[in-house]
């Protein structure tokens, strides 16, 4: 760049002579690195991934690669396994999210009160995050195993199960295994973020509401919840996307079985791509998931703008 304009000696004006250079070219040198990084790291892989979904790429037939238009999507539309995986994804996501959120909120409210050794408990809440996912999946799989784990015996004792057997082997109940592990894993996220939001609520608002005659429940619904709403909207959105894409627990605990009863879209993508080696079809499933999550995010952001006043 130093070669494009004359050397500046002291006392001389430093203004560049060309307005064209100054206003139309120079700014792009500054944003250039950022744009380049975004394009290389995000847009290029995304475009390649989406382009795969319009091709037939199977590693088993390396010389039959070709553009097939919407063929993969047409196959998707009539694929019963896809629809089943989609329903499983909804169950998995909703089941995990509801329990993670409600337990996380409850924990946040409890941690926001004063009690002895509060800091210790706050630190303990973080613990599930410190455990590698693979390890927690294995541990939970063992917990559900009646030979070495206590859970089936406890559930049988309280009448949830007729006899202590492994629910991971029961197509009707298998999904609850990974969901339980995921709840354990995800509660800290909600607890910590919501607790931070709770601490930002000025205490005078509660005092003013108390003087205005509000009961504890009214203070919760009319002060606490509206204040938490922005944080709830953003965390629920992020968490939904993460859970829907989160295949580790299911992959380790059930591998999608038994009888595909825990097969969600992201494990289906993985199995299609790396077990059947059909990258074109796997990409089509991934793109479908991407657009469903995009639509969901847009809806949540709209709802947040519409209903959250803070």
């Amino acid at each position, binding site marked *: 760049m130093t070669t494009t304009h004359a050397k500046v000696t002291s006392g001389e004006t430093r203004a560049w002579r060309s307005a064209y250079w100054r206003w139309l070219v120079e700014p792009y040198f500054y944003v250039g690195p950022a744009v380049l990084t975004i394009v290389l790291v995000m847009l290029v892989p995304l475009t390649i991934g989406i382009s795969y979904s319009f091709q037939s790429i199977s590693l088993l037939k390396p010389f039959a690669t070709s553009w097939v238009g919407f063929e993969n999507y047409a196959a998707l539309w009539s694929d019963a396994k896809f629809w089943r995986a989609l329903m499983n994804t909804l169950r998995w996501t909703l089941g995990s999210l509801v329990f993670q959120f409600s337990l996380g909120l409850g924990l946040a409210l409890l941690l926001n009160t004063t009690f002895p050794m509060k800091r210790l408990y706050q630190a303990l809440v973080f613990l599930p995050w410190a455990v590698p996912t693979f390890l927690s999946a294995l541990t939970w799989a063992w917990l559900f195993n009646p030979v070495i784990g206590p859970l089936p015996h406890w559930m049988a004792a309280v009448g949830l199960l007729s006899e202590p057997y492994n629910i991971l082997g029961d197509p009707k109940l298998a999904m609850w295994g990974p969901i339980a592990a995921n709840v354990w894993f995800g509660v800290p996220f909600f607890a910590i973020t919501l607790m931070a939001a709770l601490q930002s609520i000025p205490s*005078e608002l509660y*005092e003013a509401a*108390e*003087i205005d*005659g509000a009961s504890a429940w009214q203070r919760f619904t009319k002060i606490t919840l*509206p204040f938490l709403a922005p944080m709830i909207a953003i965390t629920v959105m992020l968490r939904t996307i993460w859970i829907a894409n989160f295949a580790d627990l299911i992959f380790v605990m059930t591998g999608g079985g038994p009888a595909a009863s825990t097969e969600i879209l992201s494990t289906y993508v993985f199995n299609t791509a790396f077990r059947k080696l059909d990258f074109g079809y796997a990409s089509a499933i991934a793109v479908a998931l991407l657009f469903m999550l995009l639509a969901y995010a847009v809806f949540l952001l709209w709802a947040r703008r519409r209903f959250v006043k803070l």
Partner: protein
Amino acid sequence: MARLELKNIAKRYGAVEVLSEVDLDIADGEFLVLVGPSGCGKSTLLRMIAGLEPITAGDFLIDGVRMNDVPPRSRDIAMVFQSYALYPHMDVARNMGFSMEIRGEDRSTRADKVAAAAKTLGLSALTERLPRALSGGQRQRVAMGRAIVRDPRAFLFDEPLSNLDAALRVEMRLEIARLHQRLGATMIYVTHDQVEAMTLADRIVVLNGGKVQQVGTPLELYERPANRFVAQFIGSPTMNVFPVVSDGAALVLGDGARLAMPDCDGATALGVRPEHIDVAAAGDGLIDGTADVVERLGSDTNLYVNAGDLGMLTVRRAGNLPVRPGERIGLHLRPENLHLFDKAGLALARRA
């Protein structure tokens, strides 16, 4: 409308005593101001009356009913906070009608009462705004509107004007005075600003270090302060106090000047307000000094006089005084306006 009684109230946080021996009987419709330096416990006392802080010892009664263990929402008291504590997610109308919303009153009653209160406070055009879109003075009005709408038994104000600029503070002070005249309600007002205290109060309670120093009308506190603290806290500029020696019939000032004063046994300090010192030519006064700084306020002149052994004295005279900085002047103390204090700082009884 209610009578509030505080009987031997105390507040302790563990071993730390913040308030003790507070005895007050607040009449129905009275405007009582709690005043004192920061940390004197005045806000704590107000919060105990509101029910936001538990009362450690003593009894608090509203209309003869003991309130110590009654939660704030059942005390039927309204409070205006220093930070206003407006609900940021509710518009002005909902903020003001929140107490009625809580009680489940129907929409039209709520709207009517809010509209009436908004009108008296000049907020009618702003009822649909959120608090963040209001100026400080407007927020202050909304906070007052929220209290008025309730029609409570008593109003509590916790330094409500301290976040406003000077001009607005004067305006809102008048507004609060008018509000009290119109509603005739019992009001308790906490402030550290003695001008607010003097102008608004029927009676002032001066607190210091968690103890009531004196209770009385503004003029009583000004004319007959019970001790040195009250004497120097009330009045602006601050009262001059300097050490004296009493020989029974006269006071001997630090520079040897004698001031005839019967019954002055036990006096160790003499207090005189800046407005009660007359200026004379050098050598003509009881005290001689050099005018160090001259402040001309137009209506008044403040002199800061270096009086040798007596230290700095503040003198305030009406009008524009022809004194130049550095000039030697004499000072006369008006005997009828002097205050005598004993070793413990308590005021000695004045001559008839």
